[in-house]
C-alpha cells in the first residue's frame, strides 16, 4: 500500500523541499524535483505491473468527511485506466522536468518553477488516483490552481497574468458544472464512491426522469451533461476552450505539461472514468461526440492561419482533444484513452521541440520571423518532423493508430457517426496541413530572422535534446501497442477492456477498415503536399488567398472573435453591468458617496460632528426599514 501512496506523495515532498528551501538549494532544487517525479514514475511502473498481473487496488486511506449517511474517504484506486494514466503522467512529467533544467537555466524563479511543476504533477496524480468524486475534485481544483500559477509564471508580462486569470476563471465555470454533477450524484446514489456509484448505474436508473423547469430529463443524462461541462472546462472544448491558447503565455515546459500529461487530459479521463454512467445515456454520449467533433474541426480551422508557433500547437491540442471526446462519445472509450496516450507523447514532443526552437531563436515565437532552420538545429528539426508526422496521422507514427481507431469506431456508429466521421476526416486534413505549414515556415524556405537572432541560433544542450529524442522514439513506436486488424494485437484495448462497458464494436469488415485507413492517410498526405506547395513552392498563394477571402481569413486569425464575444457578454455585460446596477439602486452613495464623504472628512476634521450627520446613515436605516416592510409583506405570500 505504501508504494502506491508514495506515487503522489513523492512529487508533493519535492514541492515542499523545492518550495521551502529553494532559496538555499538554488539550481539544486531541480535535482530534488526530478528525484520526486522519477520516484513516482518508478512506483507507477511497479503499480502498472501489479495491475497487469491482476491486482486492482482500491483502498481508503482515512475518512475525510463523515457526515451522517455520507462518508467520503481519502482513498486511492488503481485500476487499468488509472495505471495507464499514471504511466503517462509520471513519465512525461519526468521528461519535462529534465528538459526544464536546461530550459529554465538562469531564470530567477528557477526553484519556484520546479516547486510549481511538482505541485502540478501531485494534483494530477491525486486526480487520476482518487477513488471517489471528491478526491478527484481535489485534484481537479488543484491542477486548475497550478495551471494558474504556472501560466502566470512570467508575471512581468501582463498578458501572462491575464492568461492565468482566464484559465482559472474559465475552469471555475467548468468546475461549477462538475460540482453540480457531484451534487446530483449524491442525491441520486447517496454516495460519491466510484465503485458504489457505478454499481448502481443500471438501465433501470437510466429510465428515471426528473423535472427540470418543466422539462423531463433523465437523471443520468443530466448528471453526465453536468460532468461533461466540467470536462469541457478542463479539456478545453467548446465553449470553454478559450483559456488554452492564452495559456501559451507560460514557459514552454509548462505548456508541454498542461497539454501532454496533465490538466487537459483530466476531462477526458473523467469522462472515461464515468464511462459506466455515460454509456447509459444516449443523449449525453451524442452531446460528447458532437462537441468533440465540432471542436476538432473548429480548432483546426483556427490553427490554419495562426502565426505564433506555440499557438498553432495549442489549437492542435484543442482539436486533438476533440478527437478523444469524439471517440468517447461513440463508446470507443479505450480508443479515446489510446489517443490520449499517443497524443501525450507527440504533443509533449512538439511542445518541447518548439521550446527548443524558441530557445534557439532567443525567445522568438512568430513563425513569420523564422525559416530555413533545418540545417542549423538538426536534432530539433528531426524530432519536430517526427512529432508532426505523428500528429498528422501518417503510418506508422503513433498518431495514426489512435486516430484511425477513433475514426473507424465513429464510422461504425450509425448515421450520426457517418456525418461525424466526415467532420473528423476534414479535421484530419486540416491537421496535416497546419502541422506541416508549421514545419515549412519554420525549417524550410528563406530565413526571415532578425540579424541578431540569426547570429545566435544554436542547438539546445543535451539536457534538453535527450528528452526530445526519447519522446521522438515513443512517438514512432507507441502506436504499435494498439495494433488494429490483427486479432488480440490491440494490447491497449485488451488491457483496458475490464474498465469500460462494452458499448460498441469497431466493426468487423476488415476490407473496409483497411480501405478507410488508406483513405485517411491519403487525405493527410494531401494536406502535407498542399502545405508544401503553398509555403515552399509558391509562397504567394497564401497571401493571395488571404486577400481574396479576407473576411474569412480575418475571422480565423481572430479566432472567430469568441474572446471578444465572451468579453462582451460576460465580463462587460454581466459582471460590470450587474455591479453597476447595484451601485445605482442601492449603493451609489456607499461606494462613491462614502468615499467622497471620507475624503471630505479627512480634510475637515474640525467639523467632524457636523459631517457625522451625513444623509448616509439615514439611508442605511431607511433600507433596513424597507427590508422590514418587504419581509412583513411576505406574510401575504406565505399565508
Amino acid at each position, binding site marked *: 500500500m505504501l508504494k502506491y501512496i508514495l506515487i503522489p506523495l513523492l512529487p508533493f515532498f519535492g514541492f515542499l523541499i523545492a518550495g521551502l528551501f529553494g532559496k538555499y538549494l538554488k539550481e539544486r532544487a531541480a535535482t530534488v524535483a526530478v528525484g520526486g517525479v522519477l520516484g513516482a514514475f518508478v512506483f507507477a511502473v511497479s503499480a502498472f505491473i501489479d495491475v497487469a498481473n491482476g491486482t486492482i487496488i482500491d483502498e481508503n486511506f482515512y475518512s475525510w468527511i463523515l457526515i451522517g449517511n455520507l462518508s467520503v474517504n481519502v482513498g486511492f484506486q488503481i485500476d487499468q485506466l488509472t495505471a495507464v494514466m499514471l504511466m503517462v503522467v509520471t513519465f512525461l512529467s519526468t521528461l519535462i522536468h529534465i528538459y526544464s533544467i536546461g530550459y529554465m537555466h538562469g531564470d530567477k524563479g528557477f526553484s519556484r518553477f520546479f516547486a510549481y511543476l511538482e505541485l502540478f504533477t501531485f494534483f494530477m496524480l491525486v486526480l487520476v488516483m482518487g477513488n471517489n468524486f471528491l478526491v478527484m475534485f481535489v485534484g481537479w481544483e488543484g491542477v486548475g490552481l497550478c495551471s494558474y500559477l504556472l501560466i502566470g509564471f512570467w508575471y512581468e508580462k501582463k498578458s501572462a497574468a491575464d492568461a492565468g486569470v482566464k484559465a482559472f476563471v474559465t475552469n471555475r465555470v467548468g468546475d461549477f458544472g462538475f460540482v453540480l454533477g457531484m451534487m446530483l450524484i449524491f442525491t441520486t446514489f447517496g454516495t460519491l464512491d466510484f465503485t458504489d456509484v457505478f454499481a448502481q448505474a443500471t438501465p433501470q436508473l437510466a429510465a428515471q426522469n426528473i423535472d427540470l423547469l418543466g422539462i423531463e430529463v433523465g437523471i443520468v443524462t443530466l448528471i453526465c451533461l453536468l460532468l461533461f461541462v466540467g470536462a469541457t472546462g478542463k479539456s478545453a472544448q467548446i465553449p470553454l476552450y478559450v483559456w488554452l491558447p492564452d495559456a501559451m503565455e507560460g514557459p514552454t515546459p509548462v505548456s508541454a505539461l498542461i497539454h501532454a500529461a496533465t490538466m487537459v487530459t483530466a476531462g477526458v479521463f473523467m469522462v472515461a472514468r464515468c464511462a459506466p454512467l455515460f454509456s447509459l445515456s444516449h443523449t449525453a454520449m451524442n452531446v460528447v461526440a458532437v462537441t468533440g467533433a465540432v471542436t476538432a474541426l473548429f480548432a483546426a480551422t483556427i490553427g490554419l492561419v495562426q502565426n505564433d508557433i506555440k499557438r498553432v500547437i495549442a489549437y492542435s491540442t484543442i482539436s486533438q482533444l476533440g478527437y478523444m471526446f469524439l471517440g468517447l462519445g461513440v463508446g470507443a472509450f479505450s480508443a479515446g484513452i489510446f489517443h490520449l496516450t499517443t497524443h501525450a507523447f507527440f504533443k509533449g514532443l512538439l511542445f518541447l521541440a518548439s521550446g527548443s526552437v524558441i530557445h534557439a531563436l532567443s525567445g522568438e515565437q512568430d513563425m513569420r520571423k523564422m525559416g530555413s532552420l533545418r540545417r542549423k538545429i538538426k536534432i530539433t528539426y528531426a524530432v519536430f518532423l517526427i512529432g508532426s508526422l505523428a500528429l498528422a496521422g501518417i503510418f506508422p507514427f503513433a498518431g495514426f493508430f489512435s486516430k484511425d481507431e477513433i475514426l473507424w469506431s465513429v464510422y461504425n456508429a450509425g448515421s450520426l457517426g457517418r456525418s461525424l466521421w466526415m467532420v473528423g476526416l476534414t479535421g484530419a486534413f486540416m491537421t496535416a496541413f497546419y502541422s506541416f505549414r508549421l514545419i515549412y515556415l519554420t525549417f524550410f524556405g528563406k530565413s526571415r530572422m532578425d540579424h541578431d537572432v540569426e547570429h545566435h541560433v544554436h542547438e539546445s544542450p543535451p539536457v534538453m535534446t535527450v528528452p526530445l529524442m526519447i519522446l521522438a522514439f515513443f512517438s514512432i513506436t507507441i502506436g504499435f501497442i494498439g495494433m488494429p486488424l490483427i486479432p488480440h494485437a490491440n494490447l491497449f484495448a485488451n488491457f483496458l477492456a475490464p474498465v469500460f462497458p462494452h458499448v460498441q464494436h469497431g466493426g468487423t469488415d476488415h476490407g473496409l477498415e483497411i480501405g478507410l485507413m488508406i483513405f485517411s492517410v491519403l487525405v493527410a498526405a494531401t494536406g502535407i503536399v498542399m502545405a508544401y506547395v503553398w509555403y515552399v513552392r509558391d509562397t504567394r498563394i497564401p497571401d493571395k488567398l488571404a486577400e481574396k477571402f479576407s473576411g474569412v481569413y480575418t475571422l480565423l486569425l481572430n479566432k472567430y472573435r469568441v474572446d471578444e464575444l465572451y468579453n462582451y457578454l460576460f465580463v462587460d455585460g454581466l459582471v460590470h453591468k450587474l455591479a453597476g446596477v447595484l451601485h445605482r439602486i442601492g449603493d451609489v452613495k456607499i461606494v462613491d458617496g462614502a468615499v467622497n464623504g471620507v475624503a471630505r472628512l479627512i480634510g475637515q476634521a474640525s467639523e467632524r460632528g*457636523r459631517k457625522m450627520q*451625513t*444623509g448616509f446613515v439615514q439611508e442605511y436605516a*431607511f433600507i433596513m426599514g424597507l427590508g422590514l416592510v418587504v419581509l*412583513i409583506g411576505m406574510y401575504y405570500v406565505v399565508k
Partner: protein
Amino acid sequence: MEIGMRDIVFLCVALLTTIPCLIVVFSRNVLYSAFALFFTFLGTSGLYFFLDAEFLAITQVVVYIGGVSVLLLFAILLTKNVDEIRKTNMISGPRMALAGAAALALLGSFLYALKGARWAMNGNAAYPATTIKGLGDLLLSKYLLPFEIVSILLLAVLVGSLVISRRSVQ
C-alpha cells in the same frame, strides 16, 4: 361606542407623545427637537400609567425628563456651531415621499397584525409585579442575572465613554 373620560385622557396623552415626536424628527433646529423630546418622554410616561405600570412611569419621569433631556440640552448648548447643524437635517422631496410611503406601509401592516390579536395578558394574572417591592423581589430573584448583566453593561458603557471623551492619547 361610548367615549368615556378615560378615552379622552388617553387620546390627549397619545397626542402628547406623537406630535412632539414628529417635531423631533422634522424640526430643523436641534434645540427645538430636544425640547420636543422632553414632551415625548412625558407622554410616554403617561402611557405607562395607562398600562398600570406606575413605577415605570415615575422612573420615566425621573430618569428621562429629569436626567436624559437635561443632559441632552446641556450637550447641545455646549456644542460649538449649533446653528450649522440645522442645515444638514434636510430631506429631499422624493426621498421624503418614499420614506413616508414605507412608514405608512409599516404602520398599515402593524395595524393589520395587531388588530384582533389575542394576547396572553388578559387580566392581571400574568403581571408579575407592579409595586416597587414586587419589582425589587423579582430583580433580585428571578431576574438576578439580567440585573447583574445590566450593571456590567453600564460599566462597559462607562469605560467606553471614557475612551471617547478622553482628549487624546499621551
